[in-house]
């Protein structure tokens, strides 16, 4: 591969166009706003900048939809940047939803930043950095790129959690998040160094081919029907990172039964370092997902951070980590499924247990929702750990529905602004603050109760279909005990969801708290989301179909960018 300008600035970057767009917009906004505000005191731009950022993210969604390869990505994966970035259906689907929900988040948050006293523009720039890191995580095919993207987004989160310097809760939660996140990144690095040391590669497709090397890795798949096999000079392109011969040797080392050393004549036993490395990486990702027993940081961090930061942590970061888990377990290390599905099932069931029983005694709303998000991650993990095609499909469906309903709940928490004059002490929403909302804001209490019913899993709302879908792959693979335990715990967790509705509608007090009314832009978006909850129950076809196609497309043979015909128009 020659190193000239055509290889550095080349069309292969169309696979990362969304990331390029967001990068350039970050740099542009940083420079422009610094030039606007460096000399003037007290200029508050946060509402305008936040809405500008939601525009940027919706434009990124438009960019993803209008990529020529979005619809073709269900049949073809494209690897670019020397096999580090993969553009397949999972990447385009999750990137689209990530940008869409982030855009909706910016619209929700724009007004309330002034009330939370987070008027610096750096807050929004750091959130955009986090979105960039999550985007790269969704489309990475490399252990190193995943680690860099995790670090980029995690560093943004540490700053976001501790952004309110005047509040000691916020600073403390930032420190807790930093220490937990640094330890989990250390686990990730240790696991990936084990895997690299014992396989020789950091590419996910190489791990897949290590267990499944075939003669078709030498022969190019027909790219256009009717053209036939492409000429031979594409063999020098980086179709895979190590050759077939060495992959067979790696296979021998990894499954090494006996190996007689010529010089000293001893045998190497089978040390399953690849599986130990994978386990460490899985633990790191479970810490970041806040699955039990690694969930303790999320309770304090969600409670102490400013509410708009908490919304971002709880809603949007989980999707990318799920994508990394899918790529690692269901694509790269699928052959050793019997090793890692134990972890998924046990940690999933334990998460549901902890999330259900932990929220029973909570009165603080943010910690309550943190426990509930732990239990939701448990459902996703048990779906992932049971079956490949149905499991991945249901995990993605559940994640999207979780994001919609969580966005509804957290934004309603954000919208409720007390009519108070002096805010001198730390004030977080408590369970009793919602009393008599049915009198002051009828439709908001209806929205909150519908969302709570959906999260609890009660038909005719889509949360029921999501939970049903999670139990389906368990039953298919005859995992009856985890399914039974999860169903029982899910019934237990229904208590604290319904208790919220009881406080809204059936509280016997005469005087409640007074809230400001909510302006109409946010109401329109919230009502669209609530409508989606009901609509998706009646017609969930599009979501189910897209996720089904993704789960089938995980094993498509990839096409490297440099072997596409268009590349031969340039001098190579």
């Amino acid at each position: 591969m020659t190193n000239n300008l055509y290889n550095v600035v080349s069309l292969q970057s169309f696979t990362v166009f969304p990331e390029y767009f967001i990068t350039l917009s970050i740099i542009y906004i940083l420079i422009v706003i610094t030039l606007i505000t460096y000399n003037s005191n007290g200029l508050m731009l946060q509402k305008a900048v936040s809405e500008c950022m939601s525009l940027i993210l919706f434009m990124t969604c438009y960019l993803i939809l209008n990529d020529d390869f979005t619809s073709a990505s269900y049949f073809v994966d494209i690897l670019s940047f020397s096999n580090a970035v993969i553009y397949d259906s999972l990447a385009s689907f999750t990137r689209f939803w990530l940008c869409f929900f982030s855009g909706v988040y910016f619209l929700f948050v724009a007004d309330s930043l002034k009330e939370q006293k987070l008027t610096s523009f750096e807050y929004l720039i750091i959130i955009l950095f986090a979105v960039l890191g999550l985007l790269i995580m969704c489309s990475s095919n490399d252990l190193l790129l995943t680690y860099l993207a995790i670090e980029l987004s995690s560093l943004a989160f540490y700053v976001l959690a501790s952004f309110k310097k005047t509040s000691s809760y916020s600073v403390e939660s930032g420190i807790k998040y930093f220490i937990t996140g640094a330890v989990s990144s250390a686990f990730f690095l240790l696991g990936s160094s084990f895997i690299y040391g014992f396989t020789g590669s950091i590419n996910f497709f190489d791990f897949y081919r290590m267990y499944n090397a075939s003669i078709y890795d030498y022969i190019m798949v027909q790219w256009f029907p009717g053209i036939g096999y492409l000429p031979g000079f594409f063999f020098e392109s980086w179709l895979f990172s190590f050759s077939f011969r060495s992959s067979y040797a790696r296979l021998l080392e990894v499954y090494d039964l006996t190996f007689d050393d010529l010089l000293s004549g001893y045998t190497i036993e089978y040390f399953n370092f690849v599986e130990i490395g994978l386990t460490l990486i899985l633990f790191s990702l479970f810490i970041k997902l806040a699955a039990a027993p690694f969930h303790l940081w999320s309770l304090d961090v969600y409670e102490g951070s400013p509410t708009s930061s908490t919304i971002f942590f709880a809603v949007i970061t989980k999707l990318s980590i799920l994508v990394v888990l899918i790529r690692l377990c269901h694509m790269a290390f699928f052959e050793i499924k019997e090793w890692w599905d134990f972890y998924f099932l046990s940690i999933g069931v334990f998460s549901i247990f902890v999330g259900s029983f932990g929220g029973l005694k909570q009165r603080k709303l943010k910690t309550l929702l943190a426990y509930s998000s732990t239990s939701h991650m448990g459902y996703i993990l048990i779906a992932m750990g049971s079956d490949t095609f149905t499991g991945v499909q249901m995990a993605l469906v559940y994640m999207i529905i979780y994001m919609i309903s969580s966005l509804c709940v957290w934004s309603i928490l954000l919208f409720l602004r007390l009519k108070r004059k002096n805010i001198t002490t730390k004030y977080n929403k408590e369970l009793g603050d919602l009393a008599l909302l049915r009198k002051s804001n009828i439709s908001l209490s209806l929205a909150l109760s519908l969302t709570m019913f959906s999260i609890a899993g009660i038909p005719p709302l889509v949360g029921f279909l999501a939970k049903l879908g999670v139990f389906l792959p368990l039953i298919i693979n005859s995992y009856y005990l985890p399914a039974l335990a999860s169903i029982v715990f899910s019934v237990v967790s229904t208590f604290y969801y319904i208790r919220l509705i009881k406080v809204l509608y059936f509280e016997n007090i005469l005087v409640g708290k007074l809230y400001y009314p909510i302006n109409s832009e946010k109401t329109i978006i919230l009502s669209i989301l609530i409508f989606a909850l009901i609509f998706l129950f009646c017609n969930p076809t599009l979501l189910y179909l897209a996720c089904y196609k993704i789960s089938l497309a995980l094993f498509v043979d990839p096409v490297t960018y440099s072997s596409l015909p268009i590349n031969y128009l340039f001098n190579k």
Partner: protein
Amino acid sequence: MNSNTLFIIFSSLLVLCALMVIVSKHPVFSLLFLVGCFIFSSFLLFLLECEFLALLFIVIYVGAIAVLFLFAIMMLDTKSINLSKNVLKYIPAGFIFFIFFLTPVLTLVSDHFNTNFLANSFYFNKYQNWYDMVDSVSDVEVYGHVLYSYFVLHFLIAGFTLLLVLIGVVYLTNNFNKSQILEQSISKQLSRNSSFFFEKFDDK
């Protein structure tokens, strides 16, 4: 002299420095031995023909991280607590932990590594890699070849992470409350004259 001699010297000094980090009473002594650890690991890297990484160790570990530790120790109020009188109580348990944790790790490591019996024999002069005399690339060139071509995206994202950290750190440590920060007064510094430093000595 074996080519392993320097390796044995540096690695044993490294282990010794690491031990002294834990055993020292004052934190500044621990820091001194930590700097010694960094320098000896850098020497080990020199022996392994990674010059760039070795110099990078010195610049970054000693030049930045040890200085950071020093500032942190300077700002903290540490009293040297006399822990040495409790050491005898913990020796039996420590010995048991030593045996049960180190034995499997050491056997595992020594099973995977074996020495070349040809190079270790008494009559062996020096191992010469003839290929390296003809066609070899230095450490830095390899980094450049690989980092800017195959790992371009990783490099750019690392740069972006640094930009994010810069923005975050500048925001988090900015303090616009004038009463809480100490500033310098340039005019007072410039208007000092020699009578500021000396008392008038009356010779009486």
